[in-house]
């Protein structure tokens, strides 16, 4: 199945996750935070081989923002600067459910939006609950507005939840899910868990591969070899290599593109990504 996509030389979609909302410039001064910085980073990532950009909005001091207005300013800046597929985050540990819908309400709507598929822990006291009710209401609004969900699968229980949504016809194929590997409540980053995860996905699911921190590079390589797609960027990893911080998001995208080409998978253009994802 998925290895055949590798043998067939299917193009690989590189998603650039530029900024996130967990850490910011205090972790790496090269994390873009303002709309202008994020748009410039997106443009550089497009030139380096990205076809999808994953966006989080921030306040001017780097803190998290969820309002439609902040997302509007950000998404307009990125659309003006690039031809990338636009993916808004709907994640938000600790934020109320109504705010989590706001990133879906820009004009135009984003091409895609993240859909966190269940609970995960943060720090010692927080849990991002992502209840079934919230996941269902976000998925319904995405469907209504023609936004493709990017299911964020932080652990194997979330794959079970994805199967439930597919069985209930909540989503439209091809389904798209990001397999996420790291610490805490995430799937433990081992090759065995990676293989088990890709085999457990619902039929007709394309997968994206995301390893946090030092797992970004090896899991990108596994994703490419096993016919998946990859997500890289300073949201998930602020280092280029051990002890050396990345200078930019584009540096991480360029490395993933070189890896794909070395492994003989072409890198998808934004238009090819639209076709693969059924946008």
């Amino acid at each position, binding site marked *: 199945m998925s290895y055949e996509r590798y043998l067939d030389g299917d193009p690989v979609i590189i998603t650039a996750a530029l900024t996130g*909302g*967990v*850490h*910011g*410039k*205090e*972790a790496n*001064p090269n994390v873009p935070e303002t709309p202008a910085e994020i748009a410039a980073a997106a443009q550089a990532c497009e030139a380096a081989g990205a076809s999808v950009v994953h966006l989080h909005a*921030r306040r*001017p*001091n*780097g*803190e*998290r923002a969820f309002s439609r207005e902040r997302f509007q300013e950000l998404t307009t800046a990125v659309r003006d600067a690039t031809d990338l597929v636009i993916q808004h985050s709907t994640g938000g*540990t*600790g*934020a*109320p459910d109504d*705010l989590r819908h706001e990133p879906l309400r820009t004009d135009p709507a984003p091409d895609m939006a993240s859909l966190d598929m269940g609970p995960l822990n*943060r*720090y*010692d*006291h*927080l849990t991002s609950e992502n209840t079934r009710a919230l996941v269902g209401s976000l998925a319904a609004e995405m469907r209504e507005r023609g936004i493709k969900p990017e299911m964020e699968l932080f652990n194997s229980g979330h794959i079970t939840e994805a199967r439930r949504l597919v069985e209930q016809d909540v989503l439209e194929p091809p389904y798209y899910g990001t397999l996420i590997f790291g610490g805490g409540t995430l799937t433990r980053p081992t090759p065995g868990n990676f293989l088990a995860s890709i085999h457990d996905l619902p039929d007709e699911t394309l997968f994206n591969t995301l390893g946090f921190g030092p797992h970004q590079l090896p899991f990108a390589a596994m994703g490419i070899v096993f016919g998946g797609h990859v997500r890289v960027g300073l949201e998930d990893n602020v280092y280029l290599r051990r002890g050396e911080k990345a200078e930019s998001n584009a540096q991480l995208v360029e490395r993933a593109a070189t890896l794909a080409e070395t492994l003989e998978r072409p890198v998808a253009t934004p238009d090819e990504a639209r076709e693969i994802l059924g946008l």
Partner: protein
Amino acid sequence: MTCPLLEYRRDGGDHSFETARAYCTATETFVEPMRADICNDRYDLHHAEDCEIYESHASEASE
């Protein structure tokens, strides 16, 4: 209410920023943006219940 240990600063340690950012005077470091929502008691978050740094600082202070 915000955490009494929170300050907004432009400079601290090795960092210098154009805009003042959340700084924790207990750890003497700039705070991650996600944690800054706890420091500011935003949404339903509260520093005394949700921040382990505040919790350990408060218990040390009372010893």
